[in-house]
């Protein structure tokens, strides 16, 4: 899709976020760096609790503080630093320049207002439209996300819509002010497969029209293959591998990424009588309160070595624009 390298629209540099918990301080994001140019789609993958959603909330400036704390780093949107920005400025940015759609379409809409009211709210807040104009915009947006009979649907309450429709309404709401960046936090996890495909198609169509940058957070490799231009793989609060979608899917370097990809079950036309055992990565993500000195994946890694236990691997370029943080991979490359 987008191949022309342009100046980054959104830049996250060495972002550190900590949470105070009963068992001590948990470093939920440990040096996250991302760079997105206009019109690009970045997929963020990883297991539950690895920091994907926290990355999104940090960009939105919605990390609950306390117990959370931004311990360091930078988030820049078109060169403007967002981490030190006033709450007032952040409110202007949210919904207008960066917006977000959430995982649960069933609970993401306020049950007491019509969907029209809720879409209109965004444009009233940011563009100061009258409520009549805003409702017209809401109807337009519903048409844009391909909801049938938008003139009627706009006056309906969320409980009158199906899950897929509600997610479309969420997308309409998020895109009503034509934001530059759209963060989609597992937008299809709660939907069934056919509706998932529709939602992805819709997002792609809308992206083509408005050149929106999309950050797609998911744990679904299929969604990544379908949507993303570039992929960042996260593990325990760090980005362990990043590269173009082809590089990551065809030639994953990090043992964790390799594991993730081999875990995806395949559809085969003639399944053998003896079904192959689904692969899994043994073990679980360690508690973020005691990550120790070494690589967080080391206890689960088949290629772990002495160095992995004592030193955190740094991101190194394996091929051009393909970064990986793993001692074993690095050693192999230098050998």
């Amino acid at each position, binding site marked *: 899709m987008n191949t022309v390298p342009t100046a980054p629209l959104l830049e996250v540099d060495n972002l550190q976020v900590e949470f105070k918990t009963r068992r001590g301080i948990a470093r939920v994001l440990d040096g996250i760096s991302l760079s997105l140019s206009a019109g690009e789609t970045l997929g963020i993958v990883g297991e539950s609790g690895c920091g994907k959603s926290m990355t999104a909330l940090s960009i939105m400036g919605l990390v609950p503080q306390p117990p959370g704390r931004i311990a360091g780093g930078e988030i820049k949107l078109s060169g403007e630093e967002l981490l030190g920005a006033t709450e007032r400025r952040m*409110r202007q940015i949210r919904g207008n320049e960066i917006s977000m759609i959430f995982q649960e379409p069933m609970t993401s809409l*306020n049950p007491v207002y019509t969907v029209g009211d809720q879409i209109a709210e965004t444009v009233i807040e940011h563009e100061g439209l009258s409520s009549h104009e805003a409702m017209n915009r809401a109807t337009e947006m519903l048409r844009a996300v391909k909801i049938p009979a938008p003139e009627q649907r706009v006056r309906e309450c969320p409980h*009158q819509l199906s899950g897929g429709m509600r997610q479309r309404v969420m997308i309409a709401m998020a895109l009503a002010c034509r934001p530059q960046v759209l963060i989609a936090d597992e937008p299809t996890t709660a939907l069934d497969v056919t509706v998932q495909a529709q939602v992805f198609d819709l997002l792609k169509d809308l992206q083509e029209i408005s050149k929106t940058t999309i950050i797609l957070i998911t744990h679904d490799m299929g969604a990544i293959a379908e949507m993303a231009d570039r992929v960042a793989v996260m593990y325990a609060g760090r980005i362990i591998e990043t590269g173009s979608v082809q590089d990551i899917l065809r030639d994953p370097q990090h043992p964790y990424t390799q594991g993730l990809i081999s875990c995806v079950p395949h559809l085969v036309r003639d399944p053998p009588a003896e079904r192959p055992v689904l692969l899994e990565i043994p073990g679980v993500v360690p508690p973020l309160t005691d990550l120790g000195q070494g690589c967080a994946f080391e206890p689960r890694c088949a290629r772990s070595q002495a160095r992995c236990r004592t030193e955190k691997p740094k991101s190194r370029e394996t091929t051009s624009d393909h970064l990986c943080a793993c001692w074993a991979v690095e050693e192999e490359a230098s050998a």
Partner: protein
Amino acid sequence: MADTSSDERTITGDVKVTIEHPFTEFLRMYFKNIAAVLAFICFTVIVLVAILGPLLTDLDPFRIVWMPIAPPGQDGFLLGTDSLGRSIAVQILYGARASLAVGAAAAAITLVIGLLVGSLAGYYRGWVDEALMRVTEFFQVLPPLLLSMVLVGLFSPTLQTVVFAIGVVSWTGVARLARAEFMKIRELEYVKAARSIGSKDARIIWRVILPNALPPLIVTAALTVGAAILFEAALSFLGLSDPNIVSWGKIIGDNRDYFLEAPWTVIFPGLAIFVTVLCINLIGDGLNDAFNPKLRER
């Protein structure tokens, strides 16, 4: 479920929708509850009587009109007279105004304080929550009747003081309920979504969370009116009320020494309190049914 009845789908997938207005749906649900409807009618009559009371009789509630402790029905005095020869019926008629007014005003104060404290504590959490909840607990550990007696005793026993005293001692329940609702709702995705489109805190509290927190609060408010009427009666019974204004509790209080000789002097005002509070509670129940979507159409 609810939407299948109002949502006709043809085979081609065209959707014909007739939307029921939320308010008509609410009314329909309320009218399903017969007891609540009867209570509402009964309560309306009581309120009308309270408003029109002075027009229904030319007697003054404080005037001696007949011989003392005359039993009901004698000589046209429907409910008899008290120890001073004042008409019980006329006193009940006039007392309705004070009792209902105090009930409503005290419930309003209760709601306003409770809602403010509860919503701020539940929304902001942290030190705001800590501070407000310690204040709430301070009011909770004081015996409410005793505290209100002190308050009324400290100032002159006027209607306003009584209302204030009742309001000050009874807001804690509403505050806790509002706090719990806010704590629950603030974590929901649509509040996150509201934040993610850049809404201000004030907007999120009053326009996004509050409407969703209202149903249990409205029910509580209705019940609070009943409780406040009872509370006022208790204070009046103890003599802590405006001596120049008749209320139901005051009638009972004035006649408590003659309970055995002239039971009608306390039974009828007591009945008035009973029926009114019962009506209010039934209305509260009806509202609860009509508001609670989880019970809808099952």
